[in-house]
C-alpha cells in the first residue's frame, strides 16, 4: 500500500515535470503553427538564470521568479528579429530554431565549462508520512504545474488576449481586418511560450542539476508528447505530455529500464499511426 502510494507519487511528479516543459512548446506549436526546436534551450536558459542567482548569492526564489521574465523577453526579441521571417516556411522554421537552440546550448556550455552543477531547492528535504518519504520539491512542482496549467487555460479561454490569439491563429487576415495587430500577437504568444519554458527550467534545475544538455534531454519527449496529444489546441499537448510523462516514469517499475525507454516511443509511433490527429483533435482551447 505504502509502496503503491510512493510509486503513484513518483510517476505523477515526473508526469508533472514533462507537462511543465511541454506547456510552452504546445502553446507555440498550437497557437502559431511552428515547431520551436529551441524550446529545450529556453528551458536551459531558465535553469541557467536560476543558477546565476544562486551563484551570485541571491535567494533562489528570486532567480526562479526572474527566469520566466528574462527568457520571455529574449523570446520576444528573437521572434521579432528571426522567427518572424520563417512563418511562411514551417520546415525552414524548424531548422532555423534548431540552429538558434544550438547557439544557445553551446554558449551555455562554454559559460558553465561543461560541468554538472547543483542548484539547491528552495524547499528541500522530504515530507515524511510514516515510513514513506516523498520529495518536498517534487510535491511543490506538482502544485505549481497544476496552477500554471489552470492559469494558461483561463488566459487563453476567458480573456480578450486569449480571444485575439485564437483569432490570429484561425484567420490572420480577418483578425487584421478587425483591428488586431497580428505581428504583436505572434510576438506576445512566442514570448509567453518562451517564458513558460524559462519557468520550467527554473523549477526543474534543482531536481536534475544544471548541464548544457538539460533542454535537449527533454526535447524529443516533448515533441512526441505534442504529436500524441494533437496540435491545434491548448489541451491536446498537455494531455499528450501527461501521458508520455507518466508512461516513461511508470514503465521502469515493471520492466527493464533499457526496454522501457524504447517502448515509450514505439507505443507513441503506433498510436500516431492509428490516430494521426492525436488524442484531442481540432482547434480551440
Amino acid at each position, binding site marked *: 500500500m505504502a509502496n503503491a502510494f510512493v510509486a503513484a507519487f*513518483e510517476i505523477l511528479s515526473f508526469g508533472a515535470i514533462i507537462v511543465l516543459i511541454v506547456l510552452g512548446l504546445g502553446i507555440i506549436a498550437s497557437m502559431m503553427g511552428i515547431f520551436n526546436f529551441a524550446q529545450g534551450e529556453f528551458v536551459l536558459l531558465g535553469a541557467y538564470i536560476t543558477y546565476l542567482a544562486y551563484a551570485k548569492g541571491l535567494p533562489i526564489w528570486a532567480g526562479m521568479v526572474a527566469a520566466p521574465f528574462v527568457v520571455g523577453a529574449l523570446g520576444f526579441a528573437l521572434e521579432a528579429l528571426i522567427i518572424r521571417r520563417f512563418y511562411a516556411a514551417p520546415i525552414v522554421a524548424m531548422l532555423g530554431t534548431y540552429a538558434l537552440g544550438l547557439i544557445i546550448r553551446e554558449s551555455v556550455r562554454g559559460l558553465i565549462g*561543461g*560541468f554538472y*552543477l*547543483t542548484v*539547491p531547492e528552495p524547499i528541500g528535504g522530504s515530507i515524511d508520512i510514516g515510513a514513506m*518519504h516523498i520529495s518536498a520539491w517534487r510535491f511543490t512542482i506538482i502544485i505549481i504545474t497544476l496552477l500554471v496549467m489552470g492559469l494558461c487555460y483561463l488566459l487563453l479561454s476567458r480573456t480578450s488576449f486569449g480571444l485575439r490569439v485564437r483569432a490570429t491563429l484561425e484567420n490572420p487576415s480577418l483578425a487584421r481586418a478587425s483591428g488586431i495587430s497580428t505581428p504583436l500577437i505572434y510576438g506576445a504568444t512566442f514570448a509567453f511560450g518562451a517564458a513558460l519554458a524559462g519557468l520550467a527550467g527554473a523549477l526543474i534545475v534543482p531536481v536534475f542539476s544544471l548541464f548544457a544538455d538539460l533542454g535537449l534531454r527533454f526535447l524529443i519527449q516533448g515533441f512526441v508528447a505534442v504529436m500524441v496529444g494533437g496540435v491545434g489546441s491548448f489541451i491536446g499537448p498537455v494531455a499528450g505530455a501527461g501521458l508520455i510523462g507518466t508512461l516513461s516514469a511508470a514503465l*521502469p517499475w515493471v520492466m527493464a*529500464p533499457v526496454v522501457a525507454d524504447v517502448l515509450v516511443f514505439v507505443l507513441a509511433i503506433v498510436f500516431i499511426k492509428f490516430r494521426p490527429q492525436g488524442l484531442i483533435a481540432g482547434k480551440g482551447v
Partner: protein
Amino acid sequence: MLDRTQLTRRRFLSNFAFASGAVATGVGSWVIPAPWANAAEAPIKVGIATDLTGPIAYAGNADANVAKMVIKEINAAGGLLGRPLELYIEDTASNESVAVGNVRKLIQRDKVDMVLGGITSSMRNAIKDPIVARGKTLYIYPQLYEGKECTPYLFCTGPTPAQQCDEFIPWLIKNGGKKFALPSANYVWPHTLNVYARKVIEQNGGEVVFEEYYPLDQVDFSATVNRIVSNKVDVVFNTVIPPGVGPFFKQLYEAGFLKNGGRLACVYYDENTLNINQAAEIEGLASCLDYFKVLTKENPFDAKIQAAYEKDFPGNFLFAAGSAATGTYRGLKLWEAAVKEAGKIDRESVAAALDHAKIAEGPGGPAEMVPGKRHCKMKMYTAVAKGGNYEIVARSNGLVDPKEC
C-alpha cells in the same frame, strides 16, 4: 541575374577556399614549439589527442594542461637526450570520426614520436588502430577503465577494475554492509567493471541484490530507488554517469537511504563530480582512486605538483584522478624515464624500456609498469565525502597490481 549568380559563385569559391584552408591547417590544433631553436638535433615530438571540446571537455582540457606542465618542466631541466620536447595537441571532440582524422594529422603530418590521450573507452578503441597499427607509434592511455586492453605498444597508466575493487569492496562490506546494488549506465565500462566487482563482492561474503542497466540519458530513477529501499540494500555501488547520477543520488537521499545508514560508492567520483549534488546528498560517498587533492596535506610531492598546476592553470579544469589528469602525468613521466633508459626515440627501444619503467614520485606516490603487462602498479586510496570534501579513510599497503593481460 547573371551578375548575381556569378557573385554568388565567387563568394562560394572564396568561402570554399577559406574552409579548405581551415581544414588543411587544422582548426583545433595547437603546437607548443620547443623553447630553444639551436638544438643540435631536432626536437622530440609529443602528441596529445584529447577531448578539448564536447561533453567531457573539462577532463580533456585538464589533461592538455597537465601535458603542457610536464613538458615545460622536462624542457626546463634540459629536455630529453639533450633534445627539447615539442608538444602537439589535437582535439578528439568526443566524436570518434573527428578524432581519427585529427590523430592521423598527428601521425602523418606532425610525425609525433608518441601519442597520449583518449578518455572514453570508445575513443581509445577508435584511435588505437590509427596510432599503433597503421601509424606504428607508441600509444599511452591515461584514464581509469574496464581493463582487457592488451594491444601491443599500447600502455595504460590509469587504474583498472582490480585496482579499484580489490581493496575497496572489502572496505565497503566492513563499513557499509553485505547487500550490494549495482545500478549502472548501459555501456561497456559498467558492464565489464560489474563482472569483476560482483566476483570480489561474492568472494568477500557479500551479496548482489540486483544489477540493472539504464539508458545513458535517463534522469528519473524512482523505480530503482524504490527497489534499493524496499530490498534494504546496504551499499549502492554506482556506475550511473552524469547526467543521471545527480538526480539518482538526490532521489536516494530524499527516500531516506543515507538516513537509514546506507552507503554510496562510486569509483569515478573525484573533485570534479563533488559539485553535481549538494554536500548533504552525498555525505559518506566512498570512492577509490589513485589520487585525491586532500593528499597534498600529507605528501609534499603531491603538494608540489598540485600547486604548480594551479599556478599555471587557475580556473575550472581541475587536476583530478577521475578526468585522467593523474594518469596523464604518470604516463608522461614513465615515458620520460623509458626514453632516458633507451637512449633513443624509436618505438621498439622506448616500448622495451617502458615495459618495466618506474617513477619514484608521481601523483599519489610512486608507480611502475608491470613487465609484459603494459599496465601500471600504483598506490590506491579510499576516500569518503564529508561536507563537500574528501577524507582519506584507507590506503593500500604499497603498490596495487592491475591484474591485466
